[in-house]
């Protein structure tokens, strides 16, 4: 398999997201400008210029018309996917870390970092159909989590919000009241900061990756630990195959320490594990730095990885997996 290498970013990649049809791939990087690519041949369709800081995450609406991006410049921006036009800017007092559209694209959950004297928050905003009606007011603000919240995603039917962060705890919140419904067991759960969270195709379970060198599979409703996948390096990115019982885990040590250690200890490969047997299936090499972002195409036949080296690699799925 010869992957397609896409060099659209000058700084490390932070996040990758396919649209629902799997024909567009959105990439975010620390270089302020998210890109969109055709997922079948890797041609760049366009760029979204306007952010003034690293872009941490993005999400695309179900009909692929709107893009929402969260950036370290303390804003979250709404974009028109087709033209690259900026539709609206939400302003915050702290860098925005994570963003996701709800089912139906009527709401968006946004997390902001702990910055200066601000506490980290999870905020829910209403997304208007017409950008002119868009308001900045938050429907719900959740505070009380210590440490940065790296991911906040919607639970089934928009009834819950699942958060994961640097305090290594996963929490499920009620969307109506903003109360914490469940909290992961500190003994079973991650021991170090959670870096990534990815839901299964039917949202019944989700996978979290942590710097404690493991990835864990959780039940979305009960928050019970289902499986644990152990690797040798901190996990920066995870995703669940929508097609087969596979999970892919990417990572590598901190970019800061890469030059100081043996490259064999780096393990900059995307590792495939069997979801149920928890066995390692294989690894796909290719990056020269830690993998920061991983995303399966919704058809399950290919996946993309984004690395600290600034490359997005779009990889055809190896045949042996099928």
């Amino acid at each position, binding site marked *: *398999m*010869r*992957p*397609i*290498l*896409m*060099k*659209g970013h000058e700084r490390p990649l932070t996040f990758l997201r396919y649209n629902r*049809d*799997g*024909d*567009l791939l959105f990439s975010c990087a620390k270089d302020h*400008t998210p*890109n969109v*690519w*055709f997922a079948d*041949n*890797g*041609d*760049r*369709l*366009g*760029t*979204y*210029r306007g952010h003034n800081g690293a872009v941490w995450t993005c999400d695309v609406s179900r*009909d*692929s018309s709107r893009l929402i991006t969260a950036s370290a410049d303390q804003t979250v921006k709404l974009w028109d996917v*087709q*033209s*690259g036009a900026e539709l609206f800017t939400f302003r915050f007092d702290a860098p925005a870390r994570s963003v996701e559209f709800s089912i139906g694209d009527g709401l968006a959950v946004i997390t902001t970092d702990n910055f200066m004297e601000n506490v980290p928050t999870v905020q829910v905003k209403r997304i208007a159909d017409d950008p002119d009606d868009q308001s900045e007011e938050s429907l719900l603000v959740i505070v009380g989590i210590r440490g940065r919240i790296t991911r906040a995603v919607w639970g089934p039917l928009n009834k819950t919000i699942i958060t994961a962060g640097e305090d290594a705890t996963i929490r499920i919140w009620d969307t109506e009241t903003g109360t914490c419904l469940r909290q992961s067991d500190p003994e079973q759960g991650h021991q170090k900061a959670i870096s990534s969270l990815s839901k299964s195709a039917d949202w019944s379970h989700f996978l979290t990756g942590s710097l404690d060198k493991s990835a864990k599979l959780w039940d979305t409703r009960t928050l019970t630990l289902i499986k644990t996948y152990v690797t040798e390096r901190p996990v920066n990115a995870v995703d669940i195959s929508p097609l087969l019982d596979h999970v892919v885990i990417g990572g590598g040590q901190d970019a800061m320490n890469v030059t100081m250690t*043996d*490259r*064999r*200890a*780096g393990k*900059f*490969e995307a590792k*495939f594990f069997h979801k149920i047997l928890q066995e*390692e*299936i*294989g*690894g*796909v*090499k*290719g*990056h*020269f730095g830690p993998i920061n972002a991983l995303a399966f195409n919704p*058809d399950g036949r290919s996946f993309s990885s984004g690395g600290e080296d600034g490359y997005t*690699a779009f*990889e055809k799925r*190896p045949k*042996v*997996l099928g």
Partner: protein
Amino acid sequence: MAVEAAAATQKIRWGELEEDDEGDLDFLLPPRVVFGPDENGLKKVVEYRFDDKGNKVKVTTTTRVRKLARARLSKSAIERRSWPKFGDAVHEDVGARLTMVSTEEILLERPRAPGSKAEEPSASGDPLASKSGAVLMVCRTCGKKGDHWTSKCPYKDLAPQAEAFVDRPPTADGSGPSGGAVKGAYVPPSLRSGAVDRVGHDMRRRNDENSVRVTNLSEDTREPDLLELFRTFGPVSRVYVAVDQKTGASRGFGFVNFVHREDAEKAISKLNGYGYDNLILRVEWATPRPN
């Protein structure tokens, strides 16, 4: 269309022409005409031919042409395909080559068999082990670890090491002996095979470990002199004297790497303050560079 049709009629197989004489009458027939496909995908082909009795027959064939999109592409996805580029992608020139197909075949690597798996942790832990002085027996000629010393290497004749490194300029010293790394095209470090990597490691280790700095050397001291002086204390893996590139004169300092740390200690204690030529040597541990 007309041109295409004409081309089709002219294409008469010579083999058929010889077999039946009527074949040449095909020239008398009107050319094949193709209509459509129209918006419903209907294509009409009108052809003329002679039947068995020599009568001219008009044959009209109507077919429906359907374009098959790949099933997984939705309508909106196909529409998105024709979207114009925007942002930085508009001004992208062909030479930019943002998107490339990897020249390298990347395979899904299966985890190693249990037998070889046991070996891996020791290999990755090796740099640490050698740092503490546990694994020091490394052949510089063939890169084999723990098997034999460089001087007893069975492949010694292939790479005349001892003479080479003494007289060679320091820059060549780095890349020269590690022949494996310079073979063929450039391979990024993350993809090099284990053997090549090991050589790369040894090179670095050789420069860092048990290194003794010798200063206040006289101007005409050369590497062989220094080797002569230091080899009495134990096996020496590297000798280097800094030479001014312009004048060719010694800059008055050099480095000696010992295989054993104890030997290096001995050499420092004995030779520091030792009178050599007309100067008093200063011998000390080489401190690693700050960067």
